[in-house]
């Protein structure tokens, strides 16, 4: 087998083990943000789409490359922004019973 492929397979196997270990005792509170955060990471396929787009040279290739880049970019940008929006809400408030500073405004 091609040595480059063997090296890639080794990286793949180790990265899978890393993925199993990196998520451990997560409180249920964070399941959704964590899923969304992981979702943004596979947006890395955008890099693949860019590399493939650079080699496109006929109309079908152009169209496929454009859609792939657009899909990947939507995954990356949207994924990180929506995850950040979720996590922003976990911002630390004073422990104990202190009401939130901006809690004085009447409800809608």
């Amino acid at each position, binding site marked *: 087998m091609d040595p480059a492929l063997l090296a*890639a397979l080794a*990286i*793949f*196997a180790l*990265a899978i*083990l*890393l*993925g199993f270990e*990196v998520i451990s*005792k997560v409180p*249920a*509170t964070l*399941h*959704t*943000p*964590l*899923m*969304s*955060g*992981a*979702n943004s*990471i*596979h*947006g*890395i*396929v*955008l*890099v*693949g*789409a*860019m*590399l*493939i787009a*650079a080699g496109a040279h006929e109309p079908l290739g*152009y169209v*496929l*490359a454009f*859609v*792939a*880049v*657009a*899909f*990947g*970019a*939507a995954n*990356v*940008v*949207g*994924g*990180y922004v*929506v995850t950040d*929006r979720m*996590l922003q809400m*976990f911002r*630390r*408030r004073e422990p104990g019973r202190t009401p*939130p500073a*901006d*809690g004085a405004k*009447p409800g809608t």
Partner: protein
Amino acid sequence: MPGDTIYTLVFFCWLAGAAAFVVGLHRMNSPATARDGNRLSAAGMALAVVATFAYLVTRPAGIGTTALVIIGAGIVVGGGAGLWLARTVKMTAMPQLVSLFNAVGGGAAALVAIEDFLRVVGTSAETISTSIFVVLGVVIGCVTFTGSLVASGKLQGLVPGRPITFRGSRLLTIGLAIVALGGTALLVAGAAGAVALTPLETLLVLTAIIAAALIFGVTMVLPIGGADMPVVISLLNSFTGTAAAMAGFVINNPVLIIAGALVGAAGAILTTLMADAMNRSIGNILVGGFGTGDSGPAAAGAGGGGTVREISPDDVAVQLAYAQHVIVVPGYGLAVAQAQHSVRELAELLESRGVDVKYAIHPVAGRMPGHMNVLLAEANVPYPQLKEMEEINPEFGRADVALVVGANDVTNPAARSDASSPIYGMPILDVDQAKSIVVLKRSMGKGYAGIDNPLYADPKTGMLFADAKEGLEQLVAAVKQV
């Protein structure tokens, strides 16, 4: 290309990006560091993308203007759409948006694999290993693409949330699997030279595989009930990671392999964590059909005989205002009615009268694990008041009033006591231990599990029939009058 200095520099940027993903994901395990973790991961992504762009423009082979325009336009259009959706989506609709982003990620992975294959087909580069990784990337990517779209549609209400089955659906699924597997075998045999395929025939086989995978994604998710969608989305998320890794093998890119494998494995762990929280096995979920009501009659016979006591907002207000400990149990109905601000207003009003208010958060309250925390945090509910199930369950015995807002199955005592109940064994909130219980819900309608809730017939329980938001607003007004 590999070997020159620019490529080496870019390679190190990719490696740094991959490291940022690992550390970022790890930091997302704890609420205190989660936001930093996500930002670190985003920075790694930005580095990887910028480095790739720099590599394409500076490499000796150069880049054509058309390709440059395609990449620029794709990033602007896709990134802009993603940014707009992510900033404007209501937090209640967030799960379906995550599923949508997952769909396009899977689609992109499949497209990368397809396009690479179009280029190598018929050349000496069409090897056995390329064919295997292309087919894996295409199949997994296409299944995630349509599967995530259906899951998103179910959560959005565009596709009915109930499990959809039709005659011969199982046969169709098997047929699709045979087409995909047979096609794969044919392509690999073609690459090995065992079968003589013209480039056109090869592409036709690939098209058949693509079509089978796309339909398979639909038939896989349709029979699964809406309540199980979070787990399905998480599973598809793991699939997309794997598809990205396969695309990485196809184009021989390390950062795609590392990041894809990372998400594939982490997503799989997360999926089992979520399924555990709902006491469901992944196998059961994928077989589908949960909540079709098949087991309804038995449950109805067991607990449906009691009478239900209706209660007025004024009575509830008096109970709440003179209570010492109140536990609010928010559920899916609260999320749908966008009532998180109203519940916070009621809680603050009660606290100003000296009532101790806590929120009992079931692991799967809302639409996804952790979704309810997000919704309440958005409404400025102080984080320390949100109590997880294990922490709050012993406190129900001391609570004067448990106010259940739009939650059903997660409060059903049958899960503890009735071995014939379909939700038997599911961890629930021990709401029935409270001194009195007020259930705010629209009607006597059943929850996702489609079964009766004996809690409602409990003599301690009063039912306040209203939309979650209207009901809470009535309570706020009534408490002010007390």
